[in-house]
């Protein structure tokens, strides 16, 4: 344990969250450096999704701060959104468009160059080679989730924020997503994820964060592998 600790890129300082006058958590502090995974755990309605939305900047914290490379995310919005990709409960996939068109517009709207070959390769890698020409309306729930995951991969972001990424996926796809997360972490990326399912994440450094006890300060606990 003598290796120098990498500098944290994402850090949370004394964050508190209140929903409908109920305190979900307070005094939350953690930081995340390249190659690290943060698993947010807790029961339904304990504030996992609220925390992720605070991290994305979709909601603003009442107290406390989320910082990216040491700066509050509200002040470095543009740089932060270049480095961050979010996958929420909803997939952000348009039913009228086919998967490739969906990825094209997703890329355009995030000011990225779009390469059709790369998009098709990513969709194939996620097992959608037979659905490339179908409008997403015709796809199953799990297949749409895979399209959303393809958009996540193409985003080429350093930080992934994933809300229940495994919902609706079959065992094969779950293994695939675990592989994607491991690859992303090994390449120096970071992941913040909530999940109720056990994930096979050998060889990556995992921090766990338990939300649910509003009275206590929340800290991440590291787990060595």
């Amino acid at each position, binding site marked *: 344990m003598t290796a120098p600790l990498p500098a944290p890129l994402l850090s949370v300082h004394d964050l508190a969250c209140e929903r409908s006058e109920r305190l979900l958590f307070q005094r939350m502090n953690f930081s995340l450096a390249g190659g690290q995974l943060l698993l947010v755990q807790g029961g339904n309605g304990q504030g996992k999704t609220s925390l992720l939305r605070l991290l994305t900047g979709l909601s603003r914290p009442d107290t406390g701060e989320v910082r990216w490379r040491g700066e509050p995310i509200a002040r470095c919005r*543009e740089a932060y959104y270049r480095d961050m990709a979010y996958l929420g409960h*909803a997939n952000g996939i348009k039913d*009228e468009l086919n998967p490739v068109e969906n990825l094209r*517009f997703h890329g355009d*709207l995030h000011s990225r160059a779009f390469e059709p070959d790369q998009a098709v390769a990513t969709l194939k890698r996620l097992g959608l080679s037979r659905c490339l020409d179908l409008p997403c309306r015709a796809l199953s729930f799990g297949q749409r989730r895979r399209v959303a995951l393809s958009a996540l991969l193409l985003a080429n972001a350093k930080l992934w924020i994933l809300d229940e990424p495994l919902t609706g996926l079959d065992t094969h796809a779950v293994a695939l997503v675990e592989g994607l997360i491991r690859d992303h972490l090994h390449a120096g990326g970071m992941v913040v994820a909530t999940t109720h399912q056990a994930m096979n994440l050998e060889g990556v450094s995992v921090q766990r964060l338990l939300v649910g006890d509003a009275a206590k300060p929340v800290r991440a606990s590291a787990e060595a592998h």
Partner: protein
Amino acid sequence: MGRYFLSVVRRDLTLAARRRSDWLTALFFFVMVSSLFPLGVGPEPELLKRIGPGVLWVAATLASLLSLSRLFEDDHRDGSLEQMVLSPASTVLLVLGKAMAHWLVYGIPLLLMAPVLGIQFNLSWDAIAVLVFSLLLGTPILSLLGAAGAALTLGLRGGGVLLTLLILPLYVPALIFGAGAVDGVMAGTGAEANLSLLGAFLLVSFLVAPWIAAASLRVSLE
């Protein structure tokens, strides 16, 4: 910046092309409402000529309202609005792009249909030309102000009715100047004053509405 704006417009136009029923409904609504008036008030040419500009303007306003509640709603429901707001580009540009696409999809067909309906009201060619020009200046106002209203009421129960109550009073100046311009031409007093005021109102909406809409979107998504 320009590229982002254009890709928002292109995306919404593609979606509108796949969902033709949406904008055809609004167009037929415009045609139906303005055709009901001659049937209701009787066929005297002078009376129809008198009420024509006002009726057409009111019908255009209502037709544009009809489509506005869905301006952000569909994207909100399937999560793509969140994704668009999380883009490095500014939310103001997103709103401008969506308002522009809304105008192209819902405003332009009204402009093209208006001369035909003008004939039905026995309007002279001069009056029809001014009517189309006033709609050309006025329909973007409806899209811009409507975008702000749609962003404010996003995700609320009964948002559609609320949107109507919120936005219709803001449309009043556009309605007065627009219908007034056509009346002016028919009365022989000229349309310039009303058209200038309409143009000024368009500029103000363009400068103010996108910012209000962007701020409301962020609040609505929270």
